[in-house]
């Protein structure tokens, strides 16, 4: 059992849990993920490691409540326990030798981009961080990111923070202004990662994206997380989750993401029924 040491509500849909998992904390690196299961009937879901602390033996995860499992996860409080928590899984990001980087986070992807920015900044790189959200109430990790970036740009789809637009608009502007990056990291919705990759490709800028497909074990066993990269099939859980954005087949990845849409709805409906029953009892 893995105790929740701290909980924080980051925005109306996104929560943070700091979980006591000393073995995982000891080995975790940016870009890696964990698999967790809440209860006996629960599914195994992958979540990227947002932060880790070897002194306290804790690992931080940040998640958006999008399905049954993440909604239940959101109801847990400090002192509650997770049944299973395995990691660190996946290949760590290669961030050595980078001089100037743009780190881009879209929505929840910001939480995953944060440890990468932090690591790059600590290695002495100049780091421009660009994040994008639906509106100002969804903005994540602003204070944390300020501390690990040279410059921080925050956009909102509706302009409610005074900076209307998409992350790609900012990236384009920065590149047009003559900023030369030797690495771009883009983490967020598939469509955003695709657009960033298309934008950097003509400039030949190394671009890393983080894939988050459906997976069961997270150790290379099921192959459910297949991603086509450079025409070859890769397993996101062991070969990734970081891949070269210029080589990823995003259109296929988007189709594969829809695999369990109808079952996910059924699962949520069944959950709502049971919750309703409990309330009426």
């Amino acid at each position, binding site marked *: 059992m893995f105790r929740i040491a701290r909980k924080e509500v980051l925005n109306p849909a996104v929560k943070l849990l700091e979980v006591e998992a000393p073995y995982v904390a000891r080995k975790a690196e940016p870009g890696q993920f964990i698999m967790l299961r809440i209860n006996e009937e629960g599914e195994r879901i992958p979540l990227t490691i947002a932060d880790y602390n070897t002194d306290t033996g804790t690992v931080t995860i940040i998640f958006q409540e999008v399905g049954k499992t993440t909604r239940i996860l959101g109801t847990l409080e400090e002192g509650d326990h997770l*049944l299973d928590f395995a990691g660190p899984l996946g290949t760590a990001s290669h961030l050595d030798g980078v001089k100037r980087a743009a780190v881009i986070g879209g929505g929840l992807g910001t939480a995953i981009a944060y440890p990468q920015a932090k690591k790059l900044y600590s290695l002495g790189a100049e780091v421009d961080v660009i994040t994008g959200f639906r509106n100002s109430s969804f903005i994540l990790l602003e204070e944390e990111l300020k501390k690990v970036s040279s410059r921080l740009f925050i956009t909102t789809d509706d302009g409610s923070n005074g900076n209307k637009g998409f992350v790609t608009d900012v990236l384009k502007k920065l590149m047009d202004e003559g900023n030369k990056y030797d690495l771009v990291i883009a983490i967020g919705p598939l469509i955003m990662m695709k657009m960033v990759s298309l934008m950097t490709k003509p400039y030949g800028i190394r671009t890393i994206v983080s894939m988050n497909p459906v997976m069961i*074990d997270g*150790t290379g066993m099921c192959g459910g997380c297949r991603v086509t990269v450079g025409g070859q099939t890769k397993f996101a859980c062991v070969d990734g989750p970081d891949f070269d954005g210029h080589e990823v087949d995003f259109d296929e990845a988007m189709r594969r993401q829809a695999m369990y849409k109808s079952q996910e709805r*059924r699962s949520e409906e069944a959950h709502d029924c049971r919750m309703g029953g409990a309330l009426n009892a």
Partner: protein
Amino acid sequence: MPDMSLKKVRMPEQDPEIRSGNFKEVALGYDDEMAVSEANRCLHCKTRPCVAGCPVNVQIPEFIKLVSQGDFEGAYAKIRETNSLPAICGRVCPQESQCEQLCVRGKKGEPVGIGRLERFVADWYMANRENVVNAVERNGKKVAVIGSGPAGLTCAGDLAKKGYEVTIFEAFHVPGGVLMYGIPEFRLPKALVQKEIESVRSLGVKIMTNMVIGKVLSLAELEEEGYQAIFIGSGAGLPSFMGIPGENLNGVYSANEFLTRINLMKAYKFPEYDTPVRVTESVAVIGGGNVAMDAARCARRLGAKNVYIVYRRSEAEMPARLEEVHHAREEGIIFKLLTNPTRIIGTDDGWVKGMECIEMELGEPDASGRRRPVAKKGSEHMLDVQTVVVAIGQSPNPLIKSTTPGLETHKWGGIIVEEETGSTSLDGVYAGGDAVTGAATVILAMGAGKKAAKAIDEYLSNEE
């Protein structure tokens, strides 16, 4: 006088019509009377050929004698002397190519139902006796076992009996490995697997789940933590795909994924359990082994009307156990033999809508000694399916190899060991089971775990 009837006492089974709609166990096992009656067919030959056919050396005529005398408890103790997991072996061992193949009674008529008797004895004991453990004095030496499948459990159990402090590290959230994620409930009930694991635990073996060795701890770090020897039994976890167009369409599964969702994550109880699996009206399973049979029979139970086994050779070359093929046929699985898929066809939005196949004929024998299938030109045809399960084999999971410098492996991933001891290229590190051989059987993995336990004991005894 032995009972000279030519046939085994029939074991009751669930009716195929009924069982293809549920996940309950297919074979129902003997009752006391049937067991004694079957045990009476044993001739108790002096040469004991059956024992030579058992990878873990079960004292077969001895335990059968005890069954015939009605001493089921004694029979259980006799089996447990050499086999830590009898309820499992009695169900999933390929007895027809091991102990029973060598049985003298098999020369004329059917061999003694050794597997059925082993199963009976183990089930009887679980139902009627509390597990009793004779306390063993601990010798203070620590051994790490990676993986809690049949190889790891056997190695751990044997070492614990000798007084070692054994910790098993399991990557998944429950121990059991392939016994939990691979073999379906209707062939091997999971509650029973957990009971067998409990009996290994009761020997003093500690099991840590959620520990992905190679990631959370390296082998070197295990040594730093005081483990004096390590056994790698991490299995064959890496699924193979065919490399044909369309394999990444929605609706194409590796058998590993399909079976793990259903067995380990209990997708057959969705939405009571959260993990879904998608099964459509027509399903093609590619491959001819036990895993393919398991996948096909699961698909059937989840409501698929047409389930095809697509296999490129003929029935004679199929690696699956005869009993599994027979059960699959009874349940209405359609065998498309001498047929090979060439591509999977998808809808515009990326879902499987069919599979193109080509007919094969058998040519000259290949390296495996089996006749090589050759495509018949112009015989391409379409199979109308919406789900495809690829069950053409698994190779060893590379997680440990890739994080352990100096551990020598074959090109295809199998860890290189000395056959008799399981010792690897690293001092104090042993390996066995599918991690060494590639996908094989439960009992061979257990045999390897047993040999390694013996070798580890000798290695650590000589160290002083």
